[in-house]
């Protein structure tokens, strides 16, 4: 099966250590052709069908952890745990000064509020590198940001602000995909006008007297943006999930949730009271098997048929950088008559030729997705969440959503920011700014990912996802990477356990349309340097740098393995 020039055969997941390897052919280079061919041929199941479902190449890769690195990581955690026990022992016997706060004297005989073991990880591992998180900033979170310098004289137990401000740090951590985090420009001016007129608060819920004309305007705009019949907006993205999933499903329903779903989806699923079953991350065979079994065998023990089945997936998974296989999910959903809840928190605005999210990216019909949920925090530079779908769905949510009844509605200047930025993305404000931002983001993504892969880092996720996880693995490198990058004036986000599996700690870059090529080049240079310093270039499939010439059938360049 020889794919055409510039094309890509849809990868068939080859499971190894839970990571999915990619068999792909790309412009200019072939990856161990024999292995790829064998892998592609070995999984004929759904290949031809999927070839028709995907209108564009879907390149996703999760390179396997090298064995030596895995072993060393476990050793690292082992050493840290031992030291943790030692320090706990010393603290208990007062040999070492105890820095953390303690219970009141009057309440010493109450049952202790925290279990000692629960906080073992926090006390002994997180505390050591705590300075990489919660870094306070004091400027708009755009492409460059000002960070307040802080120092700790007691090994991160407490921080003091020196008063210095580290100016112009390249911001690779904020979710600013389309660059709307700005304090100048049309969005800010419009928001300022609305602030003058409406004030900041609302002091009431949607169903009582907090439903402003601005909210109605916003909802109509969101519906037209997404291409759905109606939409409803909420004050907090997290709460949108945790308050609306319980309104949609209840006892006797089944929720099929992806392994790596966000905490808000998990909380919403739990609060609903429905049965939850987990399928492997982005794995359509796993999902199909669960669907089949659910319908054939019904509810556990009673064997009654399920009332409804809801599939919970996200557009872009922010820790993996992977994009959901939406065409296959929709095909499955139609075949088994399930409902689809798509959480586009990171993908709305960031994917797709017109920025309409993952549905636009795959060229699918928004009517196929039953519940389209998203947030305004990432690509629109505001806050809040929305749900879009058919009119019956939105009518139902207007009457039964927990948020509409009990929670305060969105603040008017925030609403105005969303309206203005959405109009800009849609091109309704008369400029091409929106389109330019979308294109800039797509270019930045491709460029950044390619360069990092050429340098030899292990990068997870889909080629088109603006969320770029770079694997660090070892616990010491988490802290080292964060600090070294800050020394070089680049702010990055590092994540470890429990947000990721214990040995798969990573640094996560969030690209933005506000990043110019110069900024990216500076960042890449520094990342290269730090990568050499900390020996982070683990990848064994180094890509040869792309030669700018069209694909020639006769030239195959073997990759260095």
């Amino acid at each position, binding site marked *: 099966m020889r794919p055409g020039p510039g094309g890509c055969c849809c990868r068939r997941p080859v499971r190894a250590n839970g990571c999915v390897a990619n068999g792909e052919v790309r412009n200019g280079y072939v990856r161990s052709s024999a292995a790829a061919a064998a892998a592609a041929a070995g999984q004929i199941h759904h290949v031809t069908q999927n070839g028709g479902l995907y209108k564009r190449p879907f390149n996703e890769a999760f390179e396997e952890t090298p064995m030596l690195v895995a072993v060393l990581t476990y050793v690292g955690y082992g050493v840290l745990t031992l030291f943790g026990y030692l320090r706990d022992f010393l603290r208990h016997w007062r040999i070492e000064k105890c820095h953390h706060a303690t219970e009141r004297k009057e309440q010493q005989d109450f049952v202790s509020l925290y279990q000692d073991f629960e906080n073992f990880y926090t006390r002994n591992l997180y505390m050591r590198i705590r300075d990489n998180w919660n870094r306070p900033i004091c400027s708009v979170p755009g492409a460059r940001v000002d960070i307040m310098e802080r120092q700790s004289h007691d090994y991160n137990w407490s921080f003091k602000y020196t008063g210095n401000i580290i100016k112009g740090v390249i911001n690779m951590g*904020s979710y600013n995909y389309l660059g709307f985090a700005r304090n100048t420009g049309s969005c800010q001016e419009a928001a300022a006008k609305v602030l003058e007129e409406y004030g900041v608060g609302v002091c009431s819920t949607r169903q009582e007297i907090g439903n402003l004309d601005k909210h109605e305007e916003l909802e109509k705009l969101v519906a037209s943006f997404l291409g759905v019949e109606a939409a409803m907006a909420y004050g907090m993205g997290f709460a949108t999930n945790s308050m609306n999933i319980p309104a949609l499903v209840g006892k006797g329903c089944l929720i099929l949730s992806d392994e790596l779903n966000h905490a808000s989806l998990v909380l919403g699923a739990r609060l609903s009271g429905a049965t939850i079953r987990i399928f492997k991350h982005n794995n359509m065979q796993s999902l199909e098997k669960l669907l089949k079994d659910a319908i054939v065998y019904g509810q556990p023990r009673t064997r009654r048929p399920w009332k409804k089945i809801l599939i919970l997936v996200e557009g872009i998974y922010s820790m993996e950088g992977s994009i959901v296989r939406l065409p296959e999910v929709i095909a499955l959903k139609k075949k088994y008559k399930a409902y689809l809840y798509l959480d586009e928190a990171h993908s709305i605005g960031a994917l797709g030729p017109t920025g309409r999210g993952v549905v636009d990216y795959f060229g699918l019909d928004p009517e196929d997705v039953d519940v389209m949920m998203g947030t305004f925090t990432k690509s629109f530079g505001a806050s809040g969440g929305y749900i879009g779908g058919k009119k019956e769905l939105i009518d139902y949510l207007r009457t039964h959503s927990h948020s509409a009844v009990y929670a*305060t509605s969105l603040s008017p200047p925030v609403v105005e920011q969303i309206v203005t930025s959405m109009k800009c993305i849609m091109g309704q404000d008369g400029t091409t700014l929106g389109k330019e931002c979308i294109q800039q983001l797509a270019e930045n993504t491709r460029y950044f990912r390619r360069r990092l892969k050429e340098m030899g880092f292990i990068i997870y996720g889909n080629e088109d996802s603006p969320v770029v996880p770079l694997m660090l693995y070892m616990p010491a490198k988490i802290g080292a990477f964060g600090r070294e990058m800050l020394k070089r004036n680049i702010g990055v986000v590092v994540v470890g356990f429990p947000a990721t599996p214990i040995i798969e700690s990573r640094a996560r870059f969030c690209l933005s349309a506000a990043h110019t090529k110069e900024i990216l080049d500076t960042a890449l240079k520094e990342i290269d340097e730090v990568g050499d310093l900390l020996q982070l270039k683990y990848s064994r499939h180094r890509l040869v740098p792309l030669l700018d010439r069209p694909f020639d059938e006769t030239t195959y360049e073997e990759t260095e393995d």
Partner: protein
Amino acid sequence: MATAAEQWVLVEMVQALYEAPAYHLILEGILILWIIRLLFSKTYKLQERSDLTVKEKEELIEEWQPEPLVPPISKDHPALNYNVVSGPPSHNIVVNGKKCVNFASFNFLGLLDNPRVKAAALASLKKYGVGTCGPRGFYGTFDVHLDLEDRLAKFMKTEEAIIYSYGFATIASAIPAYSKRGDIVFVDRAACFAIQKGLQASRSDIKLFQHNDMADLERLLKEQEMEDQKNPRKARVTRRFIVVEGLYMNTGTICPLPELVKLKYKYKARIFLEESLSFGVLGEHGRGVTEHFGISIDDIDLISANMENSLASIGGFCCGRSFVIDHQRLSGQGYCFSASLPPLLAAAAIEALNIMEENPGIFLVLKEKCARIHKALQGDSISEHLPDVMSTASAAQLANVSLFFIQCMDRSIALTQARYLEKEEKCLPPPSIRVVVTVEQTDEELERAAHTIKEVAQAVLL
């Protein structure tokens, strides 16, 4: 040496065999033969009998019809069509095109259209833009947030405060951060929905006590004590919490805090106080129900409030001792996994706090207005010092409820029905009308409102 020992044991065994009674040997022999039989017999495969064929499975999949995703909503569902407010929801509000005096927004201190608050928010907008583009852990912490937390902690005279970006999420994230499966929570029956969701997320044992009934609470605590004595090991690791509200949203009454504190020390349970309505309303300086009763704030383990009522902003906060509050920075779901509060809202809250600190006189003014409206609406059972009043209407009269509100608005008084989710509430409060008193309402307006309510109620509901 070893072989000698082995032989010795062997000799003993053979001797025992000779000496054993016959029935014993026969029984052992039968057992050994049975074991051999079981080992070699065919295993039953129960699944084969009830396994479905592929064809049957496909038929089942074809036949299965799910319920529609949502049940259809009739066009005249009372909650479907919202009242549309044009312009700001301030003292003079335009609802559905009618100009009214606002008796429905929780704008107790009238800070919603205060020019100083707006100016502070505008300055913050010009500096930071609107959104924070990240959670607190990933470059979403602004100096404004740290400032606000500091100011709130100082105002409430506690060690530390933590801010959430949504009022509902505050208590709903705080409770599950401390109370886990196996812990016991004693909560008032009239607790608001956010508390109920927090309790549901925590998976703890919930024990409801009658509203504001300390005798009932004591009875439950005593029962728990008896249980503890039966199983002291379990009792040593089971945490106990009492969750109450300072001013109850559903009934408009104040909780009896001094008795609660006494019960706390007697039965060793921690108190979580939800002060969304009482913050900025009760107490000499607006510090809430602890100041109202003169109780030391250290006696309360956690105070949670939202900034959406008196502070006329958005969001919520928890305050207390660092020992308690710091835990939420890593385990509060609404804090760690959600974007932080937009800086302009935080700046507005700081300015509102400034105003509250500068004029402590407004709390007395509010108190007087509340007393006035209570007197005017005499005949309904309510307690003193409340910024909002519940007058109950029975279910039979509810058919005309929407007419009641339309007629009130025609007479320029904007009121709203207290909204609940009937099927989701644990203990559904009776239907009621919300009347909210704010410092901006003049005495004439208060009199007129009371008069209008009585008049329209007579005409429509009775």
